[in-house]
């Protein structure tokens, strides 16, 4: 059991932080028959709890940073974060605004940047390949490195030091079945 299985079974959760939808539709396109990333064992899941990969799009509008950080923390380790599209990477045409707190890598650590506006589905697949290569390296470094694929610096800086469980528990407090 190791990186190789993890790599071949990446479950994906998609977070839109205020993108124009261009990248988002290309992400969905990469699931559909022409590109079909399920052949790599990837599939889209409905909750971050099941996810291994976060695909993040958009320049992070105000208010979405908290949410993005929470999704990041809800995702069990090990995990990979991919920033899709230039607006999430460095603002693109939205580079100067009063309501953006991005780019994405300021909010959560990003492993792979997929450039493009929007990137073609193949470019997203190319990003996945890059992620695999990175995971292989991490795998060679031993299991420890893989729990947090990228040094959690950005997350700590912005998200405090709470553990995933605490953050989640707090936000759901009182949510028990009545």
């Amino acid at each position, binding site marked *: 059991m190791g990186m190789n299985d993890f790599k071949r079974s990446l479950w994906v959760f998609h977070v839109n932080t205020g993108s124009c939808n261009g990248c988002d539709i290309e992400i969905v396109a990469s699931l559909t028959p022409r590109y079909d990333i399920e052949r790599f064992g990837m599939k889209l899941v409905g909750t971050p709890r099941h996810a291994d990969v976060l695909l993040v799009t958009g*320049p992070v*509008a*105000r*208010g979405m940073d908290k949410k993005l950080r929470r999704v990041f923390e809800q995702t069990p380790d090990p995990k990979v974060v991919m920033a899709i599209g230039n607006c999430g990477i*460095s*603002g693109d045409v*939205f*580079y*100067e*605004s*009063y*309501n*953006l*707190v*991005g*780019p994405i*890598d*300021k909010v959560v650590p990003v492993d792979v940047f997929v450039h493009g506006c929007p990137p073609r589905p193949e470019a997203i697949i190319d990003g996945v390949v890059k992620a695999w290569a990175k995971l292989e390296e991490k795998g060679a470094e031993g299991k420890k490195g893989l729990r947090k694929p990228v040094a959690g610096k950005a997350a700590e800086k912005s998200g405090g030091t709470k553990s995933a469980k605490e953050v989640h528990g707090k936000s759901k407090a009182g949510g028990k079945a009545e």
Partner: protein
Amino acid sequence: MKPDAVLKDLQKKLGANILEARIAEHAEGGKKKHVAKSIWVKVGKSAFKDAVAELCKMHPNIYFAVISGCQEGDIVELNYHFSFNYAEPGEEFFVTLKVALPKSGLSLPTITNLVPGALISERETQEMFGVRIEGIPDPRRIFLDDGFPQGVFPWRRDETGPQKLVKKINEADE
């Protein structure tokens, strides 16, 4: 109703409260051209609601598009864009009601009782220009996050504008 009839009617009902009025034309098209007309009317603040009511009387189910606007000096100018004769081939035209609000009296009555579809736009105007919409059924913010600082109005160009929040997010990389 034709644009000139609408304008004439409006002028008759509101009299001196109409400060300015014009009909603009712009022709566009492929081989044939369509001349798109639009009415631009500037009304006094006090007569604003009456003007909307008159328009609604002239056209049941009038279509309201959006409120646009800008701030120039001590004035916040709002434009209410309505359309007439939609759903009639080739006959549609826009009526824009302009109203100038002095900074000392930034308020306007709601029109949601006449045009329910204006709610989103009124909420937007409140948060973006700091214009108080009196009697608005739902005064909460709509496009701005709750965490957005109070007292900052993104579409204003004065000291209450968003300047201090502006951030260049592309500089982080190099």
